[in-house]
């Protein structure tokens, strides 16, 4: 079973890289992620499995597909301003749905109940606090990178403060 899952993971990862169609690439990545989450579940890493499934296979795939849908074939952003309303609403609805599903799922995982939940939060918040600082910094770097690289072209007025 493990071998089958790992072969599936590698095959769909390769498809995600090689596919010239962005949509197929995003879907392949999601399927690869599902295979990986199943591997995590089978190895007993339930937290990793749940996060991989909900965040990577779910949320990120939806973001990719939304972004692809909002762009034209030639890569230009669509002229329509509809996405300014649709995207935040869609994102909000997905976030609410994700939270509800996750709450249900997390409650059903045996290892999270009782003593194990304490150890998980203890590991995350107490033992690996420095990692959290680094992770916040890494996410922050990503946000700043998007802000910097997708900045508008400087207008003539910007040359004088």
């Amino acid at each position: 079973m493990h071998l089958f899952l790992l072969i599936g993971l590698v095959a769909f990862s390769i498809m995600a890289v090689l596919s010239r169609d962005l949509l197929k690439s995003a879907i392949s990545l999601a399927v690869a992620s599902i295979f990986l989450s199943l591997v995590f579940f089978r190895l007993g890493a339930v937290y990793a499995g749940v996060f991989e499934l909900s965040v990577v296979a779910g949320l990120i795939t939806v973001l990719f597909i939304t972004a692809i849908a909002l762009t034209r074939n030639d890569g230009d952003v669509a002229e329509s301003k509809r996405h300014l309303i649709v995207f935040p609403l869609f994102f909000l609805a997905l976030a609410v749905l994700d939270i509800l599903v996750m709450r249900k799922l997390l409650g059903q995982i045996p290892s999270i109940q009782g003593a194990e939940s304490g150890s998980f939060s203890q590991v995350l918040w107490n033992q690996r606090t420095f990692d959290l600082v680094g992770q916040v910094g890494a996410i922050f770097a990503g946000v700043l990178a998007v802000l910097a690289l997708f900045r508008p072209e400087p207008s003539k007025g910007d040359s004088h403060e």
Partner: protein
Amino acid sequence: MLFLFIIVPLLLAGLLPLLGKLSKRFLPDLLASAAMLFLLVLSVVSAKPLIAGGGIIQQAFWFGAPLNIRLLLDGFSLFMLFTISLISFAVTLYSINYMEHYGAKANYYALLLVMIAGMNGLVLCSDLFNIYIFLEMAAIASYALVAFGRGHEELEASFKYLMLSAVASAFILLSIAIVFGVTGSVSFGAVAQGLKTLNIKYVVGFCSALFLAGFGLKAALVPFHSWLPDAHPSAPAPISAMLSAVLIKVSGVYAMTRIFLNVFGLTPALTTVLTVMGVVSIFVGALAALGQNDIKRMLAYSSISQIGYVVLGLGIGTPLGILGGLFHLFNHALFKSLLFLNAGAIEQSTGTRSLDKMGGLAKVMPLTATTSAIASLSIAGVPPLNGFWSKLLIIIALVQAKMHVLAVLAVLGSVVTLWYYLVLQHNAFFGKLNEAWKGVKEAPFWMSAATVLLALLCVVTGLVFPFIIKSWLQPAADVLGQGISVALNFVGF
């Protein structure tokens, strides 16, 4: 107090994009320069006295409340903190003028500060997984900074850098996972103790190979160097300076040296691999630099060559070799950042990086020509400048370790270095001034201030090298020379 090295740049990076709305230039310039100066002063005045009695582990506090964060400060980490802070300060001064035409200065400084916070975090951590996290933090900021100009060349170079860094991260992460699997821990002390008790030399050998590939990619050691000649020239000049002078050393050389010498322990096999990789890097980098016409690309290849000297010195593993390697690391940070900043000044004034199109620029840019000559002579190892002493220490250490062939090769590498830097100086600054550059002016005030500061440091470091060695380098070399006993002292913390 040590937590300030991470939290101050991180908090300021968070504020700058907001403050940038109020003031596009003045506030970002002022706050970023002030923060860098603060970190520099902190490393000299506050952090140095802390390790008077040896390395310490300090708990971090947040508004008086203790956090479960323990930071390791010893001679080696302090030396790196000082180097990072010094170069960052010079680069920030230079950026005041240089980054004007890029726009989005607040975002630029914010990314630079995150990169510095990442490097400081990496240097202060005492845990393998922390190394990986802070390595990624600094790397993500650096990908964006390389692509900051958003031109085709910048984006392509950044993508290539990102892809190869991802491969490096995979090697590093896999090795950390294996170490965790066999020792049950990722903290330096517990891993050192676990590996000592278990006696699993093949597993350690495999993990060392993975770390060597991962950190070798980050340090751009041959044969893992292919990303650097694209990434470093494409970035804005101050970022090229930061990458070549500091980032490859922190995320590559520091991390590798800390793990190999203080956690795994240096073995004869590792010594052989590191010294051979060092010498090969010296020659491949130097010969490739010799054939370049793009000034920044020449400097990038030169970085590969000079990193070879650093790894060669550290790889010998003797006290003198380690001292020479660390001294060259510091010196290279000074003169390579200076050379990249000068290349940026030339590019900004003339609009070209091609050495063929330059010539006679000393007549119109005398300050840039003078500081560039000092840096070129320093990096080539001309006495009494700083590069001479560090190379001399490495060569003496090689002779003492009876590695005579490597010593001869190191000297030959230095001759080739002198050759291509003379070519650079001649083509860029001497000869007849090209008609097109008659209207060219000297670099603006802050750019010149930064280059003069670095040039003075190259001269002063060479003249007072015994003081530099005694106060900053010897404590760092002692930490590395003590081997795994350093990590074993911190078991349980």
